[in-house]
């Protein structure tokens, strides 16, 4: 004992107050605190993991859906726009299109509401056997459609009528048959009012189409048209719809196409919510951490810590938390997106943008939501902090 001499009485106060504490010390101290509160650190990170994770997975799914819209436009005729999941001519294997957005009747309705769009017709197709009185046509194109299809796709009715709004509304078992079908199944009799079986289901012939001839050796008359609602009831509503539409009067076709693209993109609002929830989680835990370490802050201040020393310690803690949480979230979110892609028909595409945005989000959350608690910690008055139980 007693070996400690007062080294140099009267050394005066330190100079150079602006000198910052070594970053290494602040960092080590933060890591030590986080490691000693493993459970709390983990739970805090969970908020960020979920935030960034949902960000990456949602963005990946949206990117997957959006990438499908881009290439699916073609002009049919001079002023008809066709929106479909698959292009008319497929190159290579069809896997390239399987991730594209599934187009629904709701999409068709949304397109129909656009001001720049004139007329809209939705249709779905499959192939089925058509039969009447022992005669069968194999793998005939069955098209489920609406009344507008007649005009947009330029069908002419030879006899009877086309599908009407009432047929669609009531899901009637009405069928309009192509010239080939009429000729093959009804060589002598008048098909109008007769019953045919489309894939085994009974339909009544209400109209016969005028022949369109053939293209590249394929007949355009080997088809039947039924109401789209009846089609969905009979063959399911999971098939992707093709939307054919015309621009409104006097609107350039390019503008209409731009508008349609907008409609087909999915909402991105969900993402914003995920960010906020994660950020508030971090702030909450950091505030709790400040409160429960009030006494520690008091002690640190009593032994010479400045406001900035305390503030930066807490700020670095929250940045480390969100950094690690963000990395875990990005990995997890990408994993979820790829899993969804693998086991469901939903498309997904993990983009650089999604990862970058999530990383930026994590860092920004760490700083933005860490600043306030850190500032509060730094501002604590030492005597009050020391008195805190």
């Amino acid at each position, binding site marked *: 004992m007693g*070996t*400690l001499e*007062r080294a140099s009485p009267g*050394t005066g*106060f330190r100079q150079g107050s602006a000198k910052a504490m*070594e970053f290494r010390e602040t960092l080590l101290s933060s890591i030590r605190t986080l490691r000693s509160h493993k459970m709390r650190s983990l739970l805090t990170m969970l908020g960020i993991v979920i935030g960034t994770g949902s960000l990456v997975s949602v963005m990946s799914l949206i990117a997957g859906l959006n990438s499908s819209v881009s290439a699916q436009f073609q002009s049919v005729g001079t002023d008809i726009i066709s929106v479909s999941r698959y292009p008319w001519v497929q190159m290579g294997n069809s896997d390239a299109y399987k991730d594209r957005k599934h187009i629904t009747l709701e999409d068709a309705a949304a397109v129909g509401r656009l001001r720049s769009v004139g007329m809209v017709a939705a249709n779905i197709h499959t192939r089925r056997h058509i039969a009447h009185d022992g005669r069968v046509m194999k793998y005939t194109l069955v098209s489920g459609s609406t009344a507008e299809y007649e005009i947009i796709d330029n069908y002419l009715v030879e006899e009877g009528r086309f599908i009407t709004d009432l047929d669609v509304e009531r899901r009637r078992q009405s069928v309009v048959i192509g010239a080939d079908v009429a000729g093959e199944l009804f060589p002598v009799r008048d098909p109008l009012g007769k019953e045919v079986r489309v894939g085994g289901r009974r339909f009544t012939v209400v109209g016969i189409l005028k022949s369109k001839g053939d293209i590249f050796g394929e007949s355009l008359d080997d088809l039947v048209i039924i109401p789209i609602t009846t089609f969905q009831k009979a063959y399911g509503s999971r098939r992707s719809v093709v939307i054919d539409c015309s621009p409104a009067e006097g609107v350039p076709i390019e503008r209409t196409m731009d508008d349609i693209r907008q409609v087909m993109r999915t909402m991105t609002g969900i993402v914003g919510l995920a960010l906020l929830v994660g950020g508030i989680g971090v702030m909450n835990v950091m505030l709790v951490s400040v409160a429960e370490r009030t006494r520690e802050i*008091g002690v640190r201040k009593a*032994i010479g*810590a*400045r406001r900035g020393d305390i503030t930066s310690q807490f700020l670095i803690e929250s940045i480390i938390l969100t950094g690690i949480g963000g990395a875990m979230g990005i990995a997890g979110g990408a994993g979820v997106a790829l899993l969804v892609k693998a086991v469901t028909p939903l498309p997904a595409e993990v983009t650089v943008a999604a990862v970058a945005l999530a990383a930026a989000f994590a860092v920004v959350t760490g700083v933005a939501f860490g600043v306030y608690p850190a500032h509060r910690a730094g501002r604590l008055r030492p005597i009050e902090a020391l008195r805190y139980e």
Partner: protein
Amino acid sequence: MLIELRDMFKTYEVGTQQVHALRDISLSIEENEYVAIMGPSGSGKSTLMNIVGCLDTPTEGSYLLKGTEVAALDDDELAEIRSAEIGFVFQTFNLLPRMTAFQNVELPLIYGRAARHTRAERVWETMDAVGLRERAHHRPNELSGGQRQRVAIARALINRPSIILADEPTGNLDSVTGEEIMQVFRGLSDAGNTIILVTHEQYIAEHATRIVKLLDGRIASDTTT
């Protein structure tokens, strides 16, 4: 003069009421004095210690520490003075529980911006001075009360402060251990340190060479033995 308090008041606002914790305190303490501040609870001794220790500033009056007016300083300037000039020893030790004894003792050096390569040597030297070299890598919860208070004393000494402020340093210790700790302070005083001891125990106060008694925020007596 190391410490010079002149006509100092400290007033707190509690709701709409004003509480005069300290009234018209004038007190001078020279280097290497060993002063005990005594008084019943509510007498203002803790407030006085907080002000002398630069944790708080007076409402009125002047506090000169080594000739510098402390009453006018801002938060960070006070922090610097605490770092360089004051060493605190608390009743409840106030060690940081997640750090080893060594790290606790090192902390004031870090806040004092001491270069890293000089720190370890200083810490060992100080740990030796309080006789705790062997326990350096234990955490506070692995140490006895007396050992914890020695760590706290080492932490208070590490920056070679002008004043060691001890607030009821034996309050949480048994009488034998408390006596040992008082011997440490005796040694520090003999080595030339200035010590201010806050206590309400007469037998503890008697270790000091000067006893200042407070009552209702005023100095009731000031006797040098």
